């Protein structure tokens, strides 16, 4: 942690060295608006990038090691035989391919949970941004109040409630709470207010289009960057969820990947348990690849979506 803080301090101190631009030189080549690139600042930023990427490099490197060389070689360099493919096939087949089952469970939770959460947030955000209706202020107050309620404070009561309803230990116990994203609603609300001209909706209504048809054919296409943003962030939340499933799911057949990996790690740390550290590491790598790929591929969308969301933020 100390390295990046050094970076930051230096950055700010450096900036103070710059002499104030003379009055008439505001349109000069190097100004705040059109700055000169700085090698020193770039190098200092490099340290933060190293901090961010080092553990990921560690993961990739160690996923190529056998269980044995994992324990007796230097962590940040390759060693022994290149066992990545071996590790992957072991991970996928260990314990009758339970990892694949966990992967499919996670996919189910993400598609239904995050997909549903995005759908509800888009509908709700659009409704709040573009309609006047009785109770709108109450909706606003409740949802904003709910953002401050720690989701985990709700987890234990939700578990008790769900167990009365017979929902625990089923996929529903994970999916239903995932369907609500107050942050997603907030983002879509701001985004819909900005991105959809009210005149366009009026025009569609004058043409005799019903409210639902107007929403799907006129509003939805304009909301795409916002939708991708909310979808990505709810996907991350669902994919990475740990507290909720750890409370709700006891049966390993319904574990998501996060619970499965932790179970393997505990098995490896327990005396007498089969040490499967190489599987924990390779499984971790396989778990993060899809999300990282999604973020890299969809950069253009979610970055513009966030920018729009922050206009009012």
């Amino acid at each position, binding site marked *: 942690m100390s390295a990046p803080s050094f970076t930051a301090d230096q950055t700010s101190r450096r900036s103070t060295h710059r002499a104030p631009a003379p009055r008439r030189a505001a349109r000069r080549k190097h100004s705040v608006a059109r700055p000169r*690139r700085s090698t020193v600042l*770039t190098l200092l930023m490099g340290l933060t990038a190293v901090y961010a990427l080092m553990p990921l490099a560690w993961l990739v490197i160690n996923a190529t090691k056998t269980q044995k060389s994992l324990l*007796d070689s230097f962590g940040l360099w390759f060693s022994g035989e290149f066992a990545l493919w071996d590790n992957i096939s072991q991970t996928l087949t260990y314990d009758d391919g339970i990892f694949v089952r966990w992967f499919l469970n996670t996919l189910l939770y993400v598609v239904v949970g995050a997909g549903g959460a995005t759908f509800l947030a888009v509908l*709700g955000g659009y409704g709040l941004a573009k309609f006047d209706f009785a109770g709108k202020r109450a909706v606003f107050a409740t949802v904003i109040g709910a953002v401050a309620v*720690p989701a985990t404070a709700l987890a234990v*009561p939700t578990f008790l409630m769900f167990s009365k309803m017979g929902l625990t230990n089923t996929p529903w116990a994970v999916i239903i709470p995932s*369907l609500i994203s107050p942050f997603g609603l907030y983002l879509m609300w701001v985004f819909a207010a900005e991105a959809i001209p009210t005149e366009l909706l009026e025009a569609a209504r004058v043409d005799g289009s019903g409210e639902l048809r107007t929403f799907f054919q006129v509003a939805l296409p304009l909301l795409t960057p916002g939708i991708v943003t909310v979808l990505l962030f709810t996907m991350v939340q669902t994919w990475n969820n740990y507290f909720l499933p750890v409370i709700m799911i006891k049966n390993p057949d319904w574990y998501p990947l996060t619970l499965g990996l932790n179970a393997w790690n505990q098995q490896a740390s327990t005396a007498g348990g089969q040490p499967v550290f190489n599987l924990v590491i390779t499984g971790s790598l396989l778990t993060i690849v899809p999300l*990282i790929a999604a973020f890299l591929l969809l950069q253009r969308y979610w970055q513009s979506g966030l920018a729009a969301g922050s206009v009012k933020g």
Partner: protein
Amino acid sequence: MTAVTPITTGRRPPAGVSRSRRGRAGWVFVGPFMAVFALVFLAPIAYSLYLSFFRDQLVGGTSFVGLDNFQRAFEDEQFWAAVGRVLLFLVVQVPVMLGLALLIALALDSGRLYGKSFFRIAVFLPYAVPAVVATLMWGFIYGTRFGLVGNINEALGVSLPDPLSPSLVLASIGNIVTWEFIGYNMLIFYSALRVVPKSLYEAAEIDGAGEWRVITAVKIPAIRGALVIATIFSVIGSFQLFNEPSILQSLAPNAITTYFTPNLYTFTLSFSGRQQNYAATVSLVMGVVTMIIAYAVQLRGMRKEA
């Protein structure tokens, strides 16, 4: 969050039939969200309030105990020790993380970097890593025997302090959380900075302001809303601390107690201790404490804005 109120852009519809029709249409869109919201937010709060007034014992069954559970919570040293621990975590980790995130965002926004988009995505990537995987990775790295810390000790013949020892484990968790969320917060600040009108900078420059002055006088005030929101989310996140300590527990059983954080404590109470009524009470108290602090942050942020 406070800035949302004026967003009602929908033009006031004509009076009469059309207005009430439009009124119903609003609920068609908001209704589904609110229905599920009632099930997963409002109902559990109501239910835990109900539970907190009862006690369930093997002998005697369920009985109404009034405010006994609350009294017990207020006198529970383990609970308040856990609250104290997350408060300490909050006052150290949150400013460090948000300060760094802000400085990185300002550096990206200054336009003085080579390879800006690489840095932006590199610092953000850890956000896509699940807390479980992040904690497992850092847990391995922290290891003094086989981990990177152990490697360094061996290679340099030094003996670094054990990051998983009782005195350092909170700082080690702080590092994991900072690593996970610094990029996310950076991106919130950066997105907010992008939409500050460039003309403001030019105006400040004409007035003779240097780059540092532009940052403190123009950029930071312009993104105060984003700063307040990020602070509130981080405060809530700190109070909810659970994943990292819970997963590290198997690596550092002596350093991380079953009541290390309030959430770990309620988890232990309801699943190992079978004291679900009391666990619901502790959850409620914790929720109220969190809301008070989040509200205080928001008030402070608003006052500065005014």
